[in-house]
């Protein structure tokens, strides 16, 4: 009885975790599904076809290429701009610093539908209604990834004291040497984390993208389209791969951390 009471919360917590994982199991399962009909979404039989004939469904791989390209570019731009801004906000004192912090925070607090529709209103007002596509999606993604990059890198920077940098300066390192040999390596994990977050936010975005995409199709838009007419099981292969990739990234990060700690001690 006592044992049950002690572990009840843990047990209920694990049940919640199961709830979070059930859809993932379904995604993995369905990636091996051999559907009897395109209109019924259920498991009918086992096959490897979805994995071997990955690009079979019309437009799937094109949409993936578009999504990866946009996510990579948006991540690159947002990470560079966001890291610079995080340095400014943590390391420099200037008038308007707290107002800038607020400006960074607001895009994360606004609903996506509002962000997306206001950006579309701007594009329409500026006469770009006919040119919606790759570039307008890219602009939208840079905009909403930027805040997440600033917040992530800022947290890393704020948790760092500058004693190591002062030590480097005392030992006659030039400011450039101090930055590249001491500061940058210390902030790098934050920057990498921010880049990964921004890549996955961009890759997965639907609501803002759908408003500003014109005729361009990203992967989430492809899934949205096929959801109305019958889903090819290959989208579950993509889902499974994304899951495996994110687990691999987390494990690699953890291994890297441990090795680093081991070399330090």
């Amino acid at each position, binding site marked *: 009885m006592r044992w049950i009471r002690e572990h009840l919360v843990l047990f209920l917590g694990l049940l919640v975790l199961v709830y*979070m994982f059930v859809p993932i199991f379904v995604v993995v399962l369905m990636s091996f599904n051999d559907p009897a009909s395109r209109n019924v979404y259920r498991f009918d039989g086992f096959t490897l076809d979805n994995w071997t004939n990955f690009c079979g469904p019309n437009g799937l791989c094109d949409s993936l290429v578009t999504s990866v390209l946009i996510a990579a570019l948006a991540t690159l731009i947002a990470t560079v701009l966001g890291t610079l801004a995080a340095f400014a906000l943590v390391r420099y004192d200037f008038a308007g610093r707290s107002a800038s912090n607020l400006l960074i925070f607001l895009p994360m607090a606004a609903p996506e539908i509002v962000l997306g529709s206001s950006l579309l209103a701007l594009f329409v007002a500026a006469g770009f209604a006919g040119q919606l596509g790759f570039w307008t999606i890219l602009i939208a993604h840079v905009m909403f990834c930027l805040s997440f990059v600033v917040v992530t890198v800022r947290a890393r920077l704020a948790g760092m004291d500058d004693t190591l940098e002062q030590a480097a300066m005392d030992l006659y390192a030039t400011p450039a040497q101090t930055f590249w040999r001491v500061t940058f390596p210390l902030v790098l994990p934050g920057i990498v984390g921010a880049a990964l977050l921004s890549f996955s936010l961009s890759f997965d975005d639907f609501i803002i993208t759908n408003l500003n995409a014109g005729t361009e199709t990203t992967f989430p838009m492809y899934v949205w389209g096929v959801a109305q007419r019958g889903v090819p099981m290959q989208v579950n292969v993509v889902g499974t791969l994304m899951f495996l990739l*994110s687990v691999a990234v987390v494990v690699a990060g953890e291994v890297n951390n441990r090795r680093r700690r081991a070399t330090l001690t």
Partner: protein
Amino acid sequence: MAEMTRRRGRTGYLLLLPAFLTLLVFFVLPFYSLIATSLYDPSGSDVEGFEMTYHFSNYWDAISDYSGPLFRSLVYGGVATLLCLVLGYVLAYAMAFKAGRWKYLLLVLVIAPFFTSFLVRTLSWKLILADDGFVVNTLQFLQILGDDGRLLATPVAVIAGLVYNFLPFMILPLFASLDRIDPRLIEASSDLYAHPFVGFFKVTWPLSLPGVVSGTLLTFIPAVGDYINAQLLGSTGQRMIGSVIQSQFVEANNYPAAAALSTMLMIVILAMVLVYVRRAGTEELL
């Protein structure tokens, strides 16, 4: 931690400038455009162009035409947020106080599903809640659901999807603030003969309030604006406001009405958030 010396001078501005300009042009300016668009004369069209006539009645028209989806979105978002709070609190509490050395593994497990495509995950709920599926059959067997009862195309399915999709947004801030609580404070309350429930409501819950407030906001705001769950798991009876804004903008090209709806959604959410934060007494969070 040693206090860092903040440097003064122009470099700070220069470093901030690119991000600042990006947000100014693609975040602040769009809001101005949105509000301006919401006041255009609705008799225009996307081909001939719209005329600015400060047509405030766009807002009244939008309310009278779409009060249903707007109200429904707030209710679904609110219910989903409450359910997320209950489920999220249990898991975050277990992680912070009961998981021991498995704490960070559980944290990774909470975040991991999040990186699998939102739409693909939502589609798999379609299978889980399907009419002849395991869940529906069990509920029918237990007489909770009638023999021809279903879950898909009902508010239950939409809210279940919303809860599932936004749960990590609730768990992470809850965990962050629960994990900071010194467990000795809870021990002290039980040493002083407080019943565990009293200890929870007088010690743990108040200390976790910052996490509760930011978690509920991070869940409520995207859940109200979301229309993916309503569209994939619901039917036209569960249409949410995001879907109306999207279709008015992109399919009907009725820009003034769509912009008025979008502006109104922002205002309603902002007002609710301000009242909520003030009542919770955690204004310093903003």
